[in-house]
């Protein structure tokens, strides 16, 4: 029992890979910025005569064409984009878990119907569908856009969850809990679901990335959320205000950079989750370094290995 803390620390160290630390650091920084910064910045929509000014002490990230503070806009846009991403990720997680796990576990005609539906949704082209729905609906609120993004992004992870469930439900421990008399909802919720958590969390992170990118894409072409600022809407207005041709880099670089950094952070976290789920994907720089060090530390063994072919040659000659 005395070993437990050190063992736990070893397990933690195995999980805390550099990619996880960097990724989580980026995400936490951006989330904190989105949560806290809006309270400290000026009104992002306040128009001013001083338009298209570069960064200065007064406006840390400069101003837009109409003199709005870019930093204030960025703060609110971060909050908006993250909100859309999180709502979509939860919706997609729920939909994929419902169709994937329930169909996979119950099997039969329900599974056939569910996987047919999943496959149909899977081959629907996401962005064109979003554009079509987005252009039909007049009042494009945040929830509606989130809903559109969610229904086009859950299918892939539903398929993954279904195949995992199919594999887990035939395992002996599920059969054993059936024999013990567990009800179906408890078998799914208590015996199967915990073993799907790593896969589900990776699906969640993936849905978060696609949602934020998808929302940025929609907003950039002018079909995004009306009334809420996001990174995509900032880019849309920057494009409209000819920021690129006027060289107003302070207007379009910050939202673009935020998208890139968050995508990078989430991907890094996703890779390390993959590494935890499937140890074969784990890179092993530490072990490699140790092995190299060990080889250098014992020149005797190295010499022996080098000598071997020579000896063999000599033997051949003498033979």
């Amino acid at each position, binding site marked *: 029992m005395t070993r437990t803390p050190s063992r736990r620390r070893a397990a933690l160290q195995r999980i805390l890979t550099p990619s996880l630390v960097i990724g989580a650091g980026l995400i936490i920084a951006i989330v904190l910025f989105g949560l806290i910064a809006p309270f400290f910045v000026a009104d992002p929509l306040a128009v001013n005569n001083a338009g298209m000014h570069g960064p200065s002490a007064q406006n840390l990230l400069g101003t837009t064409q109409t003199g709005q503070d870019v930093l204030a806009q960025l703060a609110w846009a971060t909050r908006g984009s993250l909100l859309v991403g999180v709502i979509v990720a939860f919706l997609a997680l729920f939909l994929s878990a419902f169709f994937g796990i329930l169909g996979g576990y119950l099997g039969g005609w329900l599974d056939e119907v569910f996987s047919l539906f999943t496959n149909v949704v899977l081959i629907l082209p996401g962005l064109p569908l979003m554009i079509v729905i987005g252009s039909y609906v007049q009042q494009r609120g945040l929830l509606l856009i989130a809903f559109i993004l969610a229904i086009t992004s859950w299918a892939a992870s539903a398929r993954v969850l279904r195949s995992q469930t199919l594999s887990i439900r035939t395992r*002996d421990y599920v*059969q054993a809990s059936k*024999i013990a*008399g567990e009800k179906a909802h408890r078998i799914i919720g208590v015996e199967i679901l*915990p073993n799907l958590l790593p896969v589900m969390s990776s699906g969640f992170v993936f849905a978060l990335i696609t949602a934020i990118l998808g929302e940025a894409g929609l907003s950039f072409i002018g079909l995004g959320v009306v009334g809420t600022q996001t990174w995509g809407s900032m880019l849309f207005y920057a494009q409209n205000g000819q920021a690129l041709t006027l060289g107003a880099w302070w207007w379009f670089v910050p939202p673009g950079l935020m998208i890139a950094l968050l995508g990078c952070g989430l991907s890094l976290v996703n890779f390390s989750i993959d590494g935890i789920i499937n140890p074969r994907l784990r890179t092993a720089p530490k072990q490699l370094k140790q092995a190299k060090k060990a080889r250098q530390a014992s020149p005797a063994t190295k010499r022996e290995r080098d000598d071997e072919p020579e000896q063999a040659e000599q033997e051949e000659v003498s033979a």
Partner: protein
Amino acid sequence: MSTLAVKDLTKTYLLRDGLRFKRLEAVKGVHFELTPGRTVALVGQSGSGKSTIAKLIAQLERPTSGTITLDGKPVGRRGKALAAYRDQVQMVFQDPFASLNPFHSIGHHLERPLLLHGKATKANVREKCLILLERVNLTPAESFIDRKPHELSGGQRQRVAIARALAPEPTVLVADEPVSMLDVSIRLGVLNLLATLQREENLALLYITHDLATARHFSDEILVMYRGDVVEQGPADDVILTPQAEFTKQLLVAAPEPGTNPRFLAEAKRRGVPMPDHLAALEDRT
């Protein structure tokens, strides 16, 4: 006391082969009875239908035809009738590395059946778990109950699986190759535990194995299966000493007994040692 009777049990799987269907007869018309205090061994090679019989008895699969009765009553398929059947009939799986959920503690695996079958209340369930762990010789029980399955060895895990099967206080226990995945050195310990528990609880035990030696040692009756058919059935000693079916003889020869060593046989013949019938028959053929 409950008797589990299996009559004319048949299981046919339909396998899809492209557009056609193939029939696989896993079990063909098997009869036997499990009575309290007696062990029946089911012996056969891989794919002979042994595990299918275990699944059929455990109600994980439905028979194509034939009946399984408990005390003369046909078994319940769902709801309360099935729950009542599971109070009486439990199973130990072959692979202890697969039969415990890696996510849950040992305590969870014992608590659930205890609660589900009304053998414990929320208040005293931990106490009952500890008693169960002690019964399968996992002591000190306090140090095992909160551990995760991966922290236990194969033999310890199989003991947990046995404790789980005993939790509902069944009268019939099916053990599907309970030691085939374990190290040879701990097999006997687990088998002796099963035998002791069977004696103490007066269990009707179905011991599925491919090992004739342990089948003879631990069981009263032996059924030999070959490709879904029971080719031989009778008291353990009779089946081993005077095998009738050709397949049983082959099984006996395949077992690495010292008696079947050709050098030993030649030596025995030279000295004029009387030989068991089945070995003598072999000698004649060669």
